[in-house]
């Protein structure tokens, strides 16, 4: 395993993956408290129902798709990072794995959500 922090240059192929992974992580961290707050409203069934009806709105559905995309991107980047650190594979194999994993998750969820 490799615990040393890698300092990437913007010219290196892994740099974009690194930036996307980091920014998607920050966006998810900002979203999480609101998600927990919304779930906390489930103490009251009527409030939860109102929240579920609100999520039928087209703009909210677009936001949900964005969140799924963020989640898939961050998860894909995280799997890539774990593969880089723990598996003895060549770099391009790991990138391909991450892209494939993220794409599969997005495609599967987009289909399931019928967006």
């Amino acid at each position, binding site marked *: 395993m490799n*615990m040393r922090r890698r300092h990437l240059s913007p010219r290196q192929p892994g740099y974009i993956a690194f930036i996307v992974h*980091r920014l998607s992580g920050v966006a998810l961290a900002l979203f*999480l408290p609101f998600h927990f707050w919304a779930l906390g409203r489930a103490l009251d069934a009527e409030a939860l*129902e109102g929240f579920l009806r609100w999520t039928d709105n087209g703009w909210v559905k677009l936001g949900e798709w964005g969140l799924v995309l963020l*989640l898939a991107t961050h*998860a894909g980047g995280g799997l890539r990072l774990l593969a880089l650190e723990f598996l003895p594979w060549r770099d391009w194999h790991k990138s391909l794995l991450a892209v494939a994993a993220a794409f599969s998750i997005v495609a599967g969820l987009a289909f399931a*959500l019928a967006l």
Partner: protein
Amino acid sequence: MTTRTHARSETWLWLAQRASAVVLAFCVLVHLATIIYATRGGLTGAEILSRTRGNAAWFAFYIVFVVAVAVHVPIGLRTIAIEWLHWRGPTRDTSLVAIGVALMGVGLFATWSVFG
């Protein structure tokens, strides 16, 4: 903090970040699959709560999920605080511990609301 103690705490944080990432990868998949199942079925809020309330297995699953989130997020933000914000000193780690505790609190409250 001595160099050795610092190196040890950095190692533990690194391990905690990776271990929580593995837990979260599994939890996120299960969570999204569950949400899709619940919403595609057209269940009402009351119907969802009648199925979730008192379900000990799901309650335990979401407690693990929330704990993994509360570990993973502050450590990730800490790396950004160090590398991008150059934030040093005790206020950095105190603030990040506070974020972790707050996430754990609001997350466990949400879990209790749905499954308790």
